[in-house]
């Protein structure tokens, strides 16, 4: 049984990390080495290596080039990364805050037609997002929202809110009412009880919700592409736009950029991993 476990884990680990390893290697290469038909796998510090050999001379050029605007682009990579960070963080924050408030309401108060409302909220996810690109674009035009950060933040919040409400409702439902009632009897107002009791107890749920919302906003491509051509372009759209470049596709820079793009989301997930693990098993253990 023990060995069988490793027999599954190791191949899966290799499979999952292979693209990342490949990205890392590519990011160290020159454009020529990157598009060479033979795969060179071993980075060396040697100045000159034989073309087509197993080893290649590693360089940080690709990372350096990220700081300067690419041919035909208005800004350097970090400008687009900054867009992604702003849009990702603010839409996640908005989703979690609104989702928690909304879920608290559904969980604790008698709301006429609560079930129908919840179903309606969920139903906003039934349509494939790309099906509403055109109407959204037309709406946004009317409000001057294309090419703005606010536009994407609103859109991602709207899309993630259904997930946030449902996830948070599950978590808040699990918090016994008795805790809040004890706080009420202890001399706290309902709002204070929410701050003092509900919020600390739903931290796990908020972490889980934040991870999902951030990942979905961070990686979103379709709307980011359709609603932008200049100011609020995010990293996925920026990279895709490098295709068809007159100098060919700059693979080493893309690899370097992608690694930098992946780091925040990985570190965020690692930071909240304890909450995530608890979150995934939440509700299976009744106290």
């Amino acid at each position, binding site marked *: 049984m023990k060995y069988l476990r490793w027999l599954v884990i190791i191949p899966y680990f290799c499979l999952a990390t292979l693209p990342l390893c490949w990205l890392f290697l590519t990011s160290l290469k020159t454009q020529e080495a990157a598009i060479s038909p033979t795969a060179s796998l071993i980075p060396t510090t040697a100045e000159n290596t034989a073309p087509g050999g197993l080893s290649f001379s590693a360089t940080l050029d690709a990372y350096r080039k990220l700081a300067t605007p690419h041919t035909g682009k208005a800004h350097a990579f970090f400008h687009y990364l900054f867009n992604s960070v702003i849009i990702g963080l603010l839409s996640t924050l908005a989703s979690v805050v609104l989702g928690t408030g909304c879920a608290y309401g559904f969980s604790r108060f008698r709301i006429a037609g609560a079930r129908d409302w919840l179903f309606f909220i969920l139903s906003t996810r039934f349509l494939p997002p790309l099906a509403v690109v055109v109407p959204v674009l037309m709406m946004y035009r009317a409000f001057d929202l294309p090419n703005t950060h606010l536009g994407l933040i609103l859109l991602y919040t709207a899309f993630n809110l259904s997930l946030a409400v449902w996830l948070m409702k599950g978590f808040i439902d699990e918090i016994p009412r008795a805790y809040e*009632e004890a706080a009420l009897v202890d001399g706290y107002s309902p709002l204070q009880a929410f701050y003092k009791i509900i919020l600390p107890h739903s931290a796990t749920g908020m972490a889980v919700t934040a991870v999902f919302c951030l990942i979905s906003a961070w990686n979103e491509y379709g709307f980011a592409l359709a609603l932008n051509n200049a100011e609020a372009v995010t990293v996925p759209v920026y990279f895709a736009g490098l295709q068809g470049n007159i100098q060919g596709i700059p693979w080493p820079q893309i690899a370097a950029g992608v690694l930098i793009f992946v780091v925040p989301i990985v570190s965020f997930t690692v930071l909240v991993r304890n909450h995530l693990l608890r979150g995934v098993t939440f509700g299976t253990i009744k106290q």
Partner: protein
Amino acid sequence: MNDPFLKIDNLSKNYGETQALSEISLSLHAEELLVILGPTGAGKTTLLRIIAGLETADAGRIAVKGADITHQLPAERDIALVFQNFSLYPNKTVRQNLEFPLQAPGRNLSKEDIANRIAHSADLLRITPLLDRPATRLSGGEMQRVAIGRAIVRQPQLFLLDEPLTNLDAKLREVLRVELIRLQRDLGTPMIYVTHDRIEALSMGDRIAVLSEGKILQIGSPEEIYQQPNSPTVARQLGYPPINTIDVHKRRGQWSTASNHPIMTADHNAPSNATLGIRAENISPRGGEIPATIEVVEDLGASTILLADWAGQPIQILTSGEQPWHIGDEIYPSIDPDRVLVWGTTDEQG
């Protein structure tokens, strides 16, 4: 005497179609311990929650020291409620659990005051060594002490306890019962104690209010409730084994059962139909005329409970444990006529 400490008038509460409480009126005097006794689902917890302010009544009025508190928020009432399931905050230590009510806005206590009160209460409940433990790492008895501690640190004007001992094992229940009585006497704070346990009710209450299906059936001292219950329902709430209730009619000066067996002499002015309440200790297995067959023998050591079929009427008899009784034995039960409770029923059948 002056006004009662707490006065409840005509309190009613419905949940949809079901009536949880119906025109409850009762009063509580200063320093009094009132037990509300009733079976599960009688509305006991609802009543406490309405007094605490966690639920609002559909009708009625609650007043403390003459001031109407019916529409106040729980926080404004200065009433402590101890929940049946303890409800300690699981992410806090015992000390933080005790501090929490003292840190409530509007209480404005200095750090010193808070520390003193916690030390005093912890001492009183003997939980001082537990103060820095997480609330989740306590035994049931310890949790309940802390829950009671969280109520008494506040020095509230009224304590409400909702079956606080129900979730504990029997031995601990006895110990804590005695401690609670002592605590209430020491603090002198009035207390409403809700339970379905007749022993707790009899041993703790200055007065007992019997609640059933949302109505108060009788309020009185434990002696009154035990000796002069005003209905079979009240009588069934107290005493073990449960009281025997036998439906009878008057026939030739005798109370006769449905199968026309005369079991005892009836008063001249008694109604023609009645329910007799006879506690198990007031029936003797010998000395009667109508035979009964023993069906179950429950040996309690010092005494024995016999369940017998007495001419179609199941009865329980509490007798001394000296004689060996066997299932199938024939006995001749006799009733102590001075200790029989008679509740008249309507005379419809003549």
